[in-house]
């Protein structure tokens, strides 16, 4: 059914490079994904694989000079965001695409009250002011599950707990009824119980408000919990994509398989936990061919020279590993 619908957000072959003094770091190197409306999509990958840079480039927040959008397209509602200039972007940011950041403590301005911060985007984009703005802020705080919201309005960020701060961040993101919310590891800085609450909040809000959410995380447990579709990212490229059930049930890329194997489960009790050997390549010194080949157990000669294509397993499940694809065919 998705083939008939136009995606809300479609990123095609996005390349974001950072120019160093001696070399170019290819942080995002040809990423493509789609988010349909009212869909929760996860982008998974380990630290340094380019998730955050991808998210920032969606909002035009990559700092240029060091950064450079080297190619690709970001189609949002059919418009290419990469053609936008700063003032066009300002109308989109917060209004149609909003972002929730990783660290709720540092993402809130310490000198302003909660009301000021939530109300700011509404004031800018919707030109609401005075008592109706206040009511709107209270309603948003109630929506994100902050108790006695009216009293909280005059609090400063340092008076709130970590979970409450993240709820305020989410309220800020929701303030102008955006079509798409980009959540960049919103639960990483929180403890496990609060994390579960925030995930639950995302799920209910997404259903209630018919939101599209691009949820960026490195936590596979989170992914299994909330996502409908998953994109697995490694070294600036998407290596596997598909429905959550497919990815967790029948992972087709050695990297995804490695990630899943390194999750602790009850059946592996007492055994040493698996870990993928090696570490993520430096984005400036990526290996030729398949970026995963130095760590891959299935590596063959071809992997060292040829960049692999996505192989289609049907039903939207694609993986960037022809070796396993051919093995399965045989």
């Amino acid at each position, binding site marked *: 059914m998705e083939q008939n619908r136009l995606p809300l957000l479609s990123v095609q072959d996005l390349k974001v490079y950072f120019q160093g003094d001696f070399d170019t770091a290819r942080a995002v190197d040809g990423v493509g994904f789609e988010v349909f409306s009212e869909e929760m999509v996860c982008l998974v990958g380990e630290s340094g694989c380019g998730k955050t840079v991808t998210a920032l480039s969606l909002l035009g927040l990559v700092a240029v000079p060091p950064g450079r959008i080297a190619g690709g397209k970001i189609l949002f509602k059919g418009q290419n965001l990469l053609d936008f200039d700063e003032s066009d972007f300002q109308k989109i*940011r917060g209004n149609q695409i909003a972002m929730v950041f990783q660290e709720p403590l*540092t993402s809130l301005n310490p000198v302003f009250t909660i009301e000021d911060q939530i109300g700011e985007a509404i004031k800018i984009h919707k030109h609401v002011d005075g008592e109706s703005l206040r009511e709107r802020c209270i309603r948003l705080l109630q929506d994100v599950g902050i*108790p006695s919201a009216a009293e909280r309005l005059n609090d400063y960020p340092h008076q709130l707990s970590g979970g409450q701060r993240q709820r305020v961040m989410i309220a800020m993101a929701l303030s102008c009824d955006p079509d798409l919310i980009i959540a960049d590891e919103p639960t990483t800085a929180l403890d496990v119980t609060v994390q579960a609450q925030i995930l639950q909040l995302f799920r209910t809000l997404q259903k209630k408000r018919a939101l599209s959410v691009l949820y960026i995380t490195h936590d596979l447990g989170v992914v299994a919990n909330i996502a409908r579709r998953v994109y697995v990212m490694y070294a600036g490229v998407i290596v596997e994509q598909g429905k959550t059930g497919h990815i967790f049930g029948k992972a087709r890329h050695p990297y995804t398989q490695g990630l899943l194997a390194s999750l602790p489960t009850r059946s592996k009790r007492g055994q040493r936990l698996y870990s993928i050997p090696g570490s993520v390549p430096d984005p400036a010194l990526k290996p030729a061919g398949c970026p995963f080949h130095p760590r891959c157990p299935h590596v063959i000669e071809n992997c060292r020279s040829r960049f692999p294509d996505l192989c289609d397993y049907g039903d939207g499940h694609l993986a960037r590993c022809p070796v396993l694809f051919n093995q399965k065919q045989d």
Partner: protein
Amino acid sequence: MTLTQKNGQARENRLEKALTPKRSRLEEFWVLFRKNRLAIAGLVIFILFFATALAGLFLTSGQNPVFDPAQIRLQEKLRPPLSKPNLDTLLPVEVPRLNRYLFGTDELGRDVFARMLQGSWVSLTVGFVAVGISVFIGIFLGGIAGYFGQVLMKLDHILASVLMAAGIALIVVDRLLPGILILILTGALFMFTVRAGKIARGRGKAAGSGLLEINIFSVDTLIMRIVDIMICFPSFFLILTVVALLPASIYNIMIVIGLTSWMGATRFVRAEFLSLREQDFVAAAKALGVGNLRIIFRHMMPNAIAPVLVSATIGIASAILTEAGLSFLGFGVPPPHATWGNIIADGKRFIFDAPWLTFIPGIAILVVVLSFNLFGEGLRDALNPKLRERH
């Protein structure tokens, strides 16, 4: 609802209230500030000084002032403090108020107390106006250098800034018409290059546009090197030179002191902005679609202002000292008007016969400057979030 439920709810309400102490930032600041006794002393002295200066402005001016700083009584010269006037030799208008010379008289028989009152207003305004000018320039230039610092300047930008500087310089030296003409020309140039840049981007490269594409240096380089140049001048001698060229007046001195002391504030604001710019809340504000100017002035400035305010209070003290020094050297406020500096300067010839002429204003300067420094340090401690955590 049963009774137990009601009780439970009441307890919950109580709990919630107890858990959320409502303290505004001002209250919090005051609680911390109050602990610092020296800073409180500084604040009290500052308030007294402010009241004295305001009172002095009204009591020593006008046709028939309460305390007349200009009344000359040659027969009563160099009287010590608290001495009574010799009523036989004085006309009724010449008799000092309270029938005493509170701080004595100088070599012309003028009442030193009245002159100090008059001078306190000068000291106060010099301090505040000079620091106001320097903080304003500092915040403006430091903010630009810190926030837009990495923007590279192209040939046309440099041409425009040179023209703008020339225009302002012409206006300052009283060539209004050519100055304004050049400023208008600069504006036109800006408009033209911005429009031309947009068109050129749309159409591809035009002939000769390559020259305009060369990056020469960054905004940060430009502003901070100007700061370095200004710091290299020994500023007291720069002030002396400028004061010698300009007509002597209180306002010229305030402006000159302000224009030669903005470098510290600029460096402060720039440093604050460089670190604030990388903070997540700035990125979060950008992600909400907040514009650059609003981010600078609404989101970053309140975070950067505390250290600037602290350095400003200390700057007021040094501006008062600079003015006193200038007056002492005879380059300050022109003679009939008294300032603390020129009372000392006049009194230095009689330092052994009439030590009160130098000591009383000297101690006054010491106390006021010290109180500003103590107050400034107290502010810094109370506003510093790292020290607040300890509380």
